[in-house]
């Protein structure tokens, strides 16, 4: 089950979202139901678990553990369905805040700082992958275990201070580290001829302010694509 968690989003789609992935991860556990693979209990559980479900992919491990426990304990189907509906929101929002908006940018900033300070490519990549994946793999393993231990009462495990207050601390640490990393990484790329740095700084502030002012009406990378395409055109025809 643990290894299958890494492929939980393999058949992600806009209708059942992670639903098929949940059933895929649970399948080895469900073989232990009375009658085994060919049994009625297995078929009923597989059908139930392959319906709609959505959560952060790492914290979906919590649901997988809890659902495996519930199915093997013979918890009524209606109760299992209610759990799936209730778990979707918290497992999505906690994971998004902790990982996508917290730990991932933190690790990016750490790697950018390492680059800015002149670390070798292997060190930069190794640092990023080791830092990120220690938490990534630990989160999946903890989630599966917490779900299995607590079953459908796993909400109490989600109340741990790390998950409740952790995201805010990680965001502050990311802000500090990224602020530290950005200038030195930029200098590291520009290389020789750093006299243009003042102009770059002015441009960065102006463009960042413009992107922020757009407030989601246009993605920053699309704006950048447009600006760089215009510059390329200018540089090739002048």
């Amino acid at each position: 089950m643990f290894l299958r968690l890494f492929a939980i989003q393999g058949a992600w789609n806009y209708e059942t979202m992670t639903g098929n992935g949940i059933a895929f991860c649970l399948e080895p556990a469900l073989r232990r139901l009375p009658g085994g693979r060919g049994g009625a209990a297995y078929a009923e559980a597989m059908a139930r678990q392959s319906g709609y479900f959505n959560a952060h992919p790492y914290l979906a491990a919590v649901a997988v553990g809890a659902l495996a426990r519930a199915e093997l304990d013979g918890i009524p189907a209606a109760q299992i369905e209610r759990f799936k509906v209730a778990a979707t929101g918290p497992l999505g929002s906690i994971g998004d805040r902790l990982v996508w908006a917290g730990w991932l940018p933190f690790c990016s900033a750490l790697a950018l700082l390492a680059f800015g300070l002149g670390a070798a490519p292997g060190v930069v990549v190794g640092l990023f992958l080791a830092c990120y994946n220690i938490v990534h793999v630990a989160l999946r393993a903890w989630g599966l275990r917490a779900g299995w231990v607590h079953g459908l009462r796993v909400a109490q495990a989600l109340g741990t201070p790390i998950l409740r207050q952790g995201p805010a601390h990680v965001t502050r640490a990311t802000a500090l580290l990224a602020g530290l990393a950005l200038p030195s990484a930029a200098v590291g790329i520009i290389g020789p001829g750093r006299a243009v740095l003042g102009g770059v700084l002015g441009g960065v502030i102006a463009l960042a302010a413009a992107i922020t002012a757009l407030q989601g009406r246009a993605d920053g990378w699309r704006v950048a694509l447009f600006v760089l395409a215009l510059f390329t055109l200018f540089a090739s025809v002048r």
Partner: protein
Amino acid sequence: MSELVLGQLAPLAVLGALLGLDVVAFPQAMLSRPIVAATLTGGFLGVPERGLLVGVALEFFALESMPFGATRYPEWGSASVVGAALFAPVAEGTAGAMLLAVLVALGTAGLGGSSVHLLRRVNAALARRQQVRIARGSGSAVVALQLAGLTADLVRGGLLTVAVLLVARPATTALLGALTVSATLSRAMVVGTASAVGLAALWKLGRTTPGAPWYLAVGLGAGFALAGGLL
């Protein structure tokens, strides 16, 4: 396309496929982040330092687009392979090399994002086709659907990498000769836009957390002092 890259096209396609797969489907270990994917590609081509350079530039852009749930976001895995494969073989100091590599990588990331969106619709269609078997509780149908999704994503990333490289490499080689800007100015342009996108992304991420904007300001102050010392 330079001989070096042509000879390496098949392995690059495999790299693009594997790193494209990592974005969402398997194993989401962030091997697909530009700072990793581009460096790996550079390493594969024998110049990891140049891969890292383009990877760092793309990483600034990628700070903006985290893989939140059902949202559509650029696919950085295959795009980083393309960016590094275009930049790495070009002689150091060539004006506009990074500019064109990043430009193509950004376009590829957008195309990749659209192809992931399309794949999700294909996955839904495949799921509908298997609906009767899945509703009857067929474990093999569930596993087959998962494997089909994984395989399709792998193929998607590989095809995208090959298609873009086949078109972009001759086009960028031709354009490189026509550009009239210095290497420093073109790099500064890339770094300027990339840093701006990264800074705006950090502001968006941090502004809802009490105190985070101050941490960012303090970090930037220290960062500029540090960068000044590095100059």
